[in-house]
């Protein structure tokens, strides 16, 4: 009942908030690219057999020497820049969302346990969180990548390791509040198991604040991944993310081959901007303190 009211209110406010609408549209567009991407472009940039070195560094189609097959030009391997961006967006978005979900799942679980049971477990989890919070996320991720080596799986591990803390802390805080409440006490008296109380009663009530955190975190993760790839410790070059595309593009920027870095740069900016616009809107709506 309460959630119905909340969501209709949300929709109402959303309709009157142009930045929120813009953000949603951008995010939806990215979602289309991620899901239907391969259908939108004719080339699979990962299939090396489809590439020809002879087509390398063609400019965008509206410039002299442009090739109608390659709308935004090609890179040094003769790869269609637009196809690279579509596939790169998939990689970037996939990494951002997957790492967020993993961090959220782990962080929420630990936060619930810490807040519900308290005691030594709580102390341990919170001490680990404290240690980790003495470091900027970027440094931790950078360090982990340098220790593990490059690859998408390792980027996911590094980002998860960086991201869980914020969920654990928030969830622990709200759980502490919930546990005091009468209905939880009543459930105890009624003899419900801990697992049932946590899942049925506590969890649903601590999730709302996580929506904002999760939304913004996807954007942050996409940027951290891009920075790691820029430093050469991110994803492999055979499956480049947007960040790696930009990096490779920089090598040829001063040579005048700007389309290799500018277009992926605009794409990553648009995607993260859209996510942040949505995050902003959700924060204003879901966090009554700032309303």
């Amino acid at each position, binding site marked *: 009942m309460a959630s119905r009211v909340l969501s209709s209110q949300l929709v109402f406010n959303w309709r009157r908030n142009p930045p929120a609408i813009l953000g949603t549209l951008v995010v939806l567009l990215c979602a289309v690219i991620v899901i239907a991407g391969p259908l939108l472009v004719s080339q699979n940039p990962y299939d090396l057999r489809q590439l020809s070195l002879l087509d390398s560094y063609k400019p965008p189609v509206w410039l002299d020497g442009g090739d109608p097959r390659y709308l935004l030009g090609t890179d040094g391997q003769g790869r269609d820049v637009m196809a690279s961006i579509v596939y790169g967006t998939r990689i970037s978005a996939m990494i951002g969302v997957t790492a967020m979900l993993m961090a959220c799942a782990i962080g929420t679980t630990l936060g619930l346990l810490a807040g519900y049971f308290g005691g030594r477990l709580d102390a341990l989890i919170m001490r680990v969180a404290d240690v980790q919070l*003495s470091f900027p*996320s970027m440094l931790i991720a950078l360090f982990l990548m340098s220790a593990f080596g490059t690859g998408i799986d390792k980027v996911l591990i590094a980002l998860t390791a960086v991201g869980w803390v914020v969920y654990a802390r928030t969830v622990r805080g709200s759980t502490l509040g919930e546990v005091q409440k009468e209905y939880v006490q009543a459930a105890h008296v009624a003899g419900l198991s801990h697992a049932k109380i946590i899942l049925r009663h506590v969890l649903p009530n601590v999730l709302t604040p996580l929506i904002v955190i999760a939304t913004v975190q996807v*954007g942050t993760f996409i940027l951290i991944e891009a*920075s790691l790839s820029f430093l050469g*410790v991110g994803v492999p070059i055979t499956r480049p993310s947007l960040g790696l595309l930009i990096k490779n593009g920089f090598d040829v920027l001063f040579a005048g081959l700007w389309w290799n*870095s500018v277009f992926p740069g605009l794409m990553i900016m648009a995607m993260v*901007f859209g996510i942040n616009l949505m995050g902003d809107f959700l924060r204003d709506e879901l966090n009554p303190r700032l309303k």
Partner: protein
Amino acid sequence: MFAYAVKRLIQMLVVLWAVSVIVFMMMSFTGDPVFMVVPIDATDAEIAQARRILGLDRSLPEQYVLFLKNLLQGEFGRSYVFRQPALDLILERLPATLEIVLVALLIATVVAIPLGVFAGANPQNPLSRLIMSGSLVGISLPGFWVGMMLIFIFAVELRLFPSSGRGETVEFLGIRTSLLTANGWHHIVLPAVTLSFGTLAIILRITRAGMMEVMRQDYIKFARAKGVSRRGVLYGHGLRNGLIPVVTIFGLQLGDLIAFATITETIFAWPGMGKLLIDSIYRADRPVIVVYLMLVALIFVVVNFIVDILYTMIDPRITVK
């Protein structure tokens, strides 16, 4: 107060110890540093000799115990690559990093606070919306992209600023700084602006949120009702209280700035410790990485401690426990 300081100190030591253990463990996953030092065709005897010289002939736990022992005597270990004390290597480069971090923080603060106050005080103004959207763009851009574009436009095309390096430095109180020469400032502009982008946006948003919160408070409404001018309310009452959250964020931002300085320094060939970290990672130079991370943790903890103290001074409602 004293008890609080002691508690924080102990916490800090625990953090530093944990860092040293984790880094030691993790670094055993990376490439064997000895291969960075010996030639490709080194004989087994040559490799063994190099291991002995670098202290890599012992097992990892033994190396760690030795590391701790040395640590207690104030020895932080020696770089495998430079063969110099790791701490010296880092301290040598620390001033350069602090320079861009502080200038970036300064730029961010000077630009962000007025804009944030304005946007917070006039939330419905179209200009405020523009400021807010602009700040979002600031958070949404990868820093290295901004840096390269700035070099491309302002150094290569317009030739207004140098593209790299630190410029002239002078010795001041035993520290080499470029902040006392015109040439030094000329060099610091582009990297500091690049670095300030993200922080600027965050400070702006916190300031705005703080102001909006304060403007809703009853005492502001009272003051307005009593006939205090709008401007008076804004700067007399609102600003002071609205800025409290900004102080806290300084501590956190300093850490982020140091972290992102690694990238900025790499792009602008700025001779700071961030670039040393990246180089050391490429070279599997474990002692330098350990000391770097411990130092950053130390800076972070100390700064946040100071922030906590400041916090109680600005806002008398809060006391440290």
